[in-house]
């Protein structure tokens, strides 16, 4: 799976071993490490805090915690609203992943191989939903659905999610395609394979890691998506982040903590799966 390593990754790491041992300056080094560890604490402590509150049995958010209980998890899993939202979020995320992966991977193939004029501009356009405020995508789609009088259908929400997740698939697939040895396809065709057979037996298996990585990103981004959903969900049919947000406006109890832990665990399972199957480092590039 290392064949897909992005070219932009620091290739200088190997040269590090030639470093001459400079004069020891321990204080500067300690300060450097101390600052960095403080930053890591800042990044990770809030996530740890969520777990603490999910397990703390008091009815209000209270610190320091007084014990460990699973009552908030019971409340979360017993709540019809939360369970409906969780199910709806998973449904939307799965539909989004399927459409974003199919569209994004084929677009990447066309961009890398189709000799399209203005390919750079098209790539920039397809990546633009990452930089443009998602809340604008939500607002614009909401206004369009109102004008066309289509209501707030699930496909409308999935279309919005597909738009904001497609860039991830395009990017990871393009990264793989750019490191692709074209001679492999030529060899297959020289040996008598038709272009279609070459595609399914050579091209597709080789770009699979990139497509898969994009699909996993698409799933996570869709599952956590908020601003687009905010405009496009209908009352009674909300995604989990919207339900959590509405709950948070009025209540601040451990149920939110439990719901958070469930979604964190879900994201981690997906990411560890990603790391195990295709390797994470190659795709983390902004």
């Amino acid at each position, binding site marked *: 799976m290392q064949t897909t390593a992005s070219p932009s990754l620091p290739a*200088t790491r190997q040269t590090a071993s030639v470093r*001459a041992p400079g004069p020891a300056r321990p204080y500067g080094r300690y300060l450097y490490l101390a600052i*960095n560890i403080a930053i890591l604490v800042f990044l*990770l402590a809030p996530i740890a805090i969520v777990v603490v509150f999910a397990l703390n049995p008091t009815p209000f958010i209270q*610190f320091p915690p007084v014990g460990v209980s699973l009552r908030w998890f019971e409340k979360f899993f017993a709540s019809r609203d939360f369970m409906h939202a969780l199910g709806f979020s998973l449904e939307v995320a799965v539909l989004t992943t399927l459409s974003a992966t199919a569209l*994004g991977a084929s*677009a990447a193939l066309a961009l890398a191989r189709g000799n399209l004029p203005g390919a750079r501009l098209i790539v920039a356009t397809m990546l633009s939903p990452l930089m443009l405020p998602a809340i604008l995508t939500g607002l614009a789609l909401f206004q369009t659905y109102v004008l066309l009088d289509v209501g707030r259908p699930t496909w409308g929400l999935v279309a919005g999610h597909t738009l904001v997740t497609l860039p991830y698939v395009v990017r990871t697939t393009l990264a793989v395609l750019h490191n692709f040895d074209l001679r492999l396809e030529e060899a297959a065709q020289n040996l008598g394979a038709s272009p279609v057979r070459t595609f399914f037996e050579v091209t597709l298996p080789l770009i699979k890691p990139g497509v898969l990585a994009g699909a996993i990103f698409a799933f996570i981004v869709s599952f956590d998506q908020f601003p687009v959903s905010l405009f496009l969900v209908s009352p009674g049919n909300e995604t989990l*982040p919207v339900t959590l947000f509405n709950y*948070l406006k009025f209540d601040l109890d451990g149920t939110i903590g439990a719901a958070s832990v469930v979604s964190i665990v879900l994201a981690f399972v997906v990411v560890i799966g990603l790391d195990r199957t295709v390797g994470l480092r190659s795709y983390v590039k902004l």
Partner: protein
Amino acid sequence: MNSTTATRPNGLALFILPSALLFALFFFLPIGLMAVMSVLTGNPVVMPKVAFTTKHYVRMIGDPFYLEVIWTTIRIGLVTTLVALAIGYPLAHWMARIKSRTGHALLLIAVLAPMLTGIVVRTFAWMTLLSDKGVVNETLMSLGFISQPLKLMYTETGIVVGLVHIYVPFMVLTLTGVIGRIDERLEQAAENLGASPLRAFLEVTLPLSVPGILAGSLLVFALAISAYVTPILLGGFQIMTLPILIYQQISANFNVGFAAALGIVLLVISLLLVVAYNRALGLVSGQRELQ
């Protein structure tokens, strides 16, 4: 890219069509409609007579309240960007220079973990930390540093803290790619010639990483000015930013035209940032070709 070797599109080019259709129908058309709505007197579907108007934009420019909202949004974005840069840079530098593979993987997981935790969840975490009876205040009071809880939530400071936490990973990942490309031997050469590590960093690494600083800052700024959840929950509905105002115009006032006009303002600011971001990234790749 091989697009320069042959000029005629081949059969594979057709694979772009489904995505092109998606963008046309669900991106360009809606944003175009938003632009149109921002200069109309009403909803052309519901109302029989609509006319062209600039009243939504005039209202925005004429009322100090709306200008104040735009300025608050930009101010929060700027402070968030600067803080994210200040704390993102050291971590990015460590990630780019760390020798052990395991160490690098652990740092990467630490940076990605917050990114993979939803925005609503992370904002909830900061509410539990920053509220009057939150972790920070309880800890400081029990240690006797303060007798009254500090007002951390429902302030711009609280919003900035939350936003920095949410967007600093984007800064780190952008910077670490750029710093990683700077040849470490340049720093060593400076040190061998007698510069202190700090001076070698300030005079060699820092100037070479400026394109990364620009790209990361523009990205974080663009994300921060369009944030909704964090400003509304940590600001407690008391601090108004552009995205909050836009949603309020839709949900409470149902003033679609004014919301569209506000959306266009946010869009124009964002588009300018996208262009600048691509320029900054162009500088990065130009630098890579030089090496």
